[in-house]
């Protein structure tokens, strides 16, 4: 990823050092080593801050039409110019970030929650429960996700909530498998066996001993999930099945790029949302990569 010397001495150095530190400190040590992940995290923090502070960093409401601003070039008053309807592009990018990020976060929270529940039931109880849940998972994984999401959204009607819900409700199978697999391996570990022998309740074993070990890989999966949910929203909006205007989202703002005229002469209409998606998704992926490496010492060679 980053430019580094591949000398074995140096490579193993942090791991050796980290052997003595607490798990959290070890995690941070490894994560900080990942320069792109660190940079990405800072970038994402800025994006998130801008989105949260949207009313304070913009001068114009995102849905307000200014006369004479239709496709107008950037100026001191409107630093990223105006869009096809004469709205301030900077405001729309910032508010659009709110929408796109929340679509990503909400959708992933839904699918992670489902994955956690189904995966845990499946992994912990095994047998018929496992069998049933896993077969449903298998079936769900067979559907091409975007086609399925598109179909369901078009059946329900496009709206920001439907998009969030549908991406979330259909996106859980991969994570559910991950949770199950993780639980299957953790429950064989000695300390779980020991807890069982000591008569600790199922629920306690689950929540106190097993789940913490599941959360790390799940967090990594969730990170990548947010990235792909943002892309899915963009695609759906492009097809007119996503977040409905005038509410801005990075996806529906990109619709401006459907015109060669705008592509050629009005870069400020499509470059900002395009770059916002590209950089945010890129940063999320780098961060996910960093998290994975930091959580999983085996991967730290990468």
């Amino acid at each position, binding site marked *: 990823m980053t*430019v580094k010397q591949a000398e074995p001495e140096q490579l193993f150095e942090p791991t050796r050092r980290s052997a003595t530190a607490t798990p959290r400190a070890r995690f941070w040590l490894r994560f900080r080593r990942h320069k792109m992940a660190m940079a990405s995290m800072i970038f994402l923090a800025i994006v998130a801050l801008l989105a949260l502070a949207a009313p304070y960093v913009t001068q114009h409401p995102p849905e307000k039409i200014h006369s004479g601003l239709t496709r107008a070039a950037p100026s001191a008053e409107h630093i990223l110019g105006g869009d096809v309807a004469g709205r301030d592009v900077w405001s729309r990018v910032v508010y659009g970030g709110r929408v796109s990020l929340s679509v990503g976060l909400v959708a992933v929270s839904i699918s992670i929650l489902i994955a956690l529940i189904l995966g845990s039931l499946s992994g912990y109880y095994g047998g018929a429960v496992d069998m049933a849940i896993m077969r449903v998972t298998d*079936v769900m994984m067979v559907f091409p996700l*975007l086609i399925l999401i598109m179909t369901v959204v078009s*059946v329900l009607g496009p709206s920001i909530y439907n998009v969030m819900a549908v991406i979330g409700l259909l996106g859980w199978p991969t994570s559910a498998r991950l949770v199950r697999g993780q639980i299957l391996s953790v429950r064989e570990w000695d300390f779980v066996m020991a807890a069982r022998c000591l008569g600790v309740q199922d629920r306690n074993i689950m929540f106190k001993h097993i789940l913490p070990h599941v959360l790390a890989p799940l967090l990594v999966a969730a990170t990548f999930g947010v990235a792909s949910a943002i892309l899915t929203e*963009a695609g759906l909006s492009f097809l007119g099945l996503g977040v409905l205007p005038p509410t801005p989202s990075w996806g529906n703002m990109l619709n401006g790029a459907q015109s060669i005229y705008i592509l050629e002469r009005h870069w400020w209409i499509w470059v900002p949302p395009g770059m916002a998606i590209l950089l945010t998704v890129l940063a999320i992926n780098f961060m996910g990569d960093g998290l994975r490496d930091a959580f999983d010492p085996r991967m730290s060679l990468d």
Partner: protein
Amino acid sequence: MSTYILRRILLVFPLLLGVTIINYTIFALAPGDPLSAMIDPLELNSMTEEDVREAKEALGLNKPIPVRYLLWLSQAIRGNLGYSIWFNTPVFDVMLRALGNSMPVMIFALMTSTIAGIALGIVSALKPYSLLDSVLTTFAFAGVAVPGFFFALLLIYAVAIRMDLLPTGGVTTPGLEPSFGDRLAHIILPGLALAYETTGSLLRYTRSSLLEVLSQDYMTTARAKGLVERIVVLRHGLRNALLPIITILGLRLPFLFGGAVLIETVFNYPGVGLTMVQAANMRDYPLMMGGVLLTAILVLLSNLIADLFYTVADPRIRYEEG
């Protein structure tokens, strides 16, 4: 091994049934009716309520949903997916024609991305943490991060319009005699647009799995035996690192179908993706259901084939099961 294969094949049937049930559940949620999207707003103005009622009745939209589903399923089992309301043609025919257009693009995309992804992944892994590695990694990540339709729009603008190298869309050039060259010319741009994301993931996968393999003991042994580094990598490392790629390629199909939805729209390329977008716009339920079902079956089969290949290719599985 044969019991494993048999079990694997038998597993397909319950999965298939599950697919139709989920498919049904989704469409049971549908409000309204496809008729609404079938009438030109201009025509609608002049339709009386009675016209609309008649039109609905004529389309069989007044029957209860479970009845409609059972009708559909009983036909589907016999290989008849019903008729597309909009096309007035069997769904199967519509999808088959669309698939005939999509397949060459997907195969092109799969081949391009496999070759490019693996080759660049090896380059990346041989010189980890070099400048080249960083460039390639960024390239790979960008492939995963750029919205496919956006990349496709830029490709059309740059390659088709500015450089004037390839056609902007469609399947063939109208009026020309059908030829391989003409077909290929129309496949390259959508194929590349579709391939980018897969290339990125394969590059990342090849790189990390090769790096992992290269650090294994047997590689050290091979090196210790005095084998040249390149041979070590290619003979021992690559083989082991790339075996799982068979499975990965098998699992790419759903993503390709998903990508095709957007990319075929941009390229006006009448394949599965575009057909599904139109079905969604028209709320042509039989076509939507049939399309979802058929793509799911294709994915199921491609997973099965990938699994079987893998079983044959990887000796470890044979021993386990034997």
